[in-house]
């Protein structure tokens, strides 16, 4: 039943006010504060070597994590959707674990496993491989946190499509790679892009897990979210907001891409 006009308008107003207070105002404020001391100060903060390194490191992490995640997501979804094997249900649950576990716990687990005093610590020292407080640790934790993103987007689509198109392609003489490249992949391309965009946004913004394993070494293992906190604690408000605005910009771009994909796809 259609609600009475007045209560309808009231609900809309409520939604608008809440969105303004909770989402829009803080976002606008970030940019307002970042530019509050003028363009020059903002630019100087962005050009600070520690800031540039943080941006660089964050991008490196995303560039490593997202492709790996796409490969993992497709492989996992393919295995679950197109094949029957014992432990299939368990695999689906395992893929979703990172959704339900707090990232900081993931960070601590990795610390206990790969850290100097950890289970694999002695062996890692022997082969001279530093995982914790270095890039590999940050990548590992980010991988863990973002693991479900691509798989969860692609899997329902693959399940809904079944295997008939692939079977048709095989009877027409296509090789395994041709079936994947020309039939399976085009069918999931929008879900895949969508998953990749979400995964990128999450990988760039991850804070809790990374803060445990990175060690916050300025100019070495400080990612952008960690750098925001660092600058904030340094009482460098403009710097903190400049960093935050950069992060926000990445998130907004990701959101716009996602929205564009949805209009095209839907």
């Amino acid at each position: 039943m259609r609600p009475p006009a007045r209560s309808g308008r009231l609900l809309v107003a409520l939604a608008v006010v809440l969105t303004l207070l909770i989402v829009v105002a803080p976002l606008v404020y970030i940019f307002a504060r970042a530019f509050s001391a003028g363009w020059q100060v903002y630019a100087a903060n962005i050009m600070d070597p520690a800031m540039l390194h943080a941006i660089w490191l964050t991008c490196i992490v995303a560039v490593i994590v997202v492709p790996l995640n796409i490969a993992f997501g497709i492989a996992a979804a393919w295995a679950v959707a197109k094949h029957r094997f014992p432990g299939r249900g368990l695999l689906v649950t395992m893929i979703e674990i990172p959704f339900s576990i707090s990232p900081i716990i993931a960070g601590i687990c990795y610390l206990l496993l790969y850290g100097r005093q950890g289970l694999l610590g002695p062996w890692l020292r022997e082969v001279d491989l530093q995982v914790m407080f270095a890039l590999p640790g940050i990548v590992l934790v980010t991988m863990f946190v973002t693991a479900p993103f691509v798989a969860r987007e692609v899997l329902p689509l693959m399940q809904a499509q079944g295997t008939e198109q692939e079977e048709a392609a095989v009877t027409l003489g296509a090789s395994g790679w041709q079936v994947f490249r020309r039939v399976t992949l085009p069918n999931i391309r929008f879900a895949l892009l969508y998953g990749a965009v979400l995964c990128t946004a999450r990988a760039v913004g991850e804070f809790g897990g990374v803060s445990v394993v990175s060690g916050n070494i300025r100019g070495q293992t400080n990612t952008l979210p960690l750098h925001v906190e660092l600058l904030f604690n340094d009482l460098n408000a403009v710097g903190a907001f400049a960093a935050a605005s950069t992060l926000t910009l990445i998130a907004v771009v990701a959101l716009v891409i996602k929205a564009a994909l949805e209009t095209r796809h839907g």
Partner: protein
Amino acid sequence: MSITIAGMTKRFDRTEVLRGIDLSVEAGELLALLGPSGSGKTTLLKIIAGLEWPDAGQLRVEGQDWLQLAARDRRIGFVFQNYALFPHMRVRDNIAFGLSVRPRADRPAKAQIAATVDELMAFLQIDHLADRYPAQLSGGQRQRVALGRALAIQPRVLLLDEPFGALDAAIRRDLRRWLRSVHEATGSTTIFVTHDQEEAFELADRVVVMGDGRIAQIGDADQIHDHPATPFVARFMGATVELPVTLAAGRAQGSGLDLTALPRRALPDGPAQVFVRPADLRAVPDAGGPWHITSRVSTGADLRLTARHDSGTEAEIQMPRRDAPALAQGAPVTLRVEAGAIFPSPRIDTTAPSILPRHKEIAR
């Protein structure tokens, strides 16, 4: 291409889907696999295609062992029930797919592929749809595109799974005639699966009736209609009324039944069953008859009656209303059997086609 299947069995988990299939298909033949769902007909088709593998048995095509060949090397054309067209490709790219995935060495040039596809689309009367996507096509058009995609690779064998299953009645009839003409023009060995008798008999040279993972009977429409090989086939062909009779000196006799229209046949004396279509039964008013009319429904042209014997047996009767005598509910009658199939009562089980009596006899 001639196909020979021998001793083929297949089980999924605990279910036996095929219980020993022996079948020969001649080159250029149009063959129907007819049966109710769960009879194993689609599984057999998928094994020929290489999309399923049997547990035991042989599959030879022109003498070549096809169980040693992967699906992609068999060069078969498979048309899926729901067509399985590639939704992101235009009609022409769907049809060209089989040619464009060939290894570089035997792949025709782009212009050659385009020419072949154009020719095929003209032949299938879908050239005006070339640049559409599958989502923009009707069911009948999709069916034609699916067939075009399968024919493009010049298949050695053409396999169709319920080719008209998803279409409405008028389009079905059109496409049936059209498929027959396509078959005659291409001359390829064609096997299709259906659960629709009319479709099977109208389209196919020979019909293979399958039930419960076995071949119950092979023949043309008249043979299967008039001389069902097993009680299963009789029932599947619509002889749903089962009447208990006694055989003596080749003649069947039953309480309240007029079986004189059935000829004598060489069957051993003893209990038997006659399978009759409701339309081959007539109710004859008879004051002393052991059958009584229990329901009477008119469909305008026909009268549908249910008669009940004193022993509890029920029979459905369908007769033209203008021929029907005035029969009220509860009226006593005898039943006249115009045509039917007689099978001696089995010692074990009537439903399994395996233990069918080899010396079956039928009459009209």
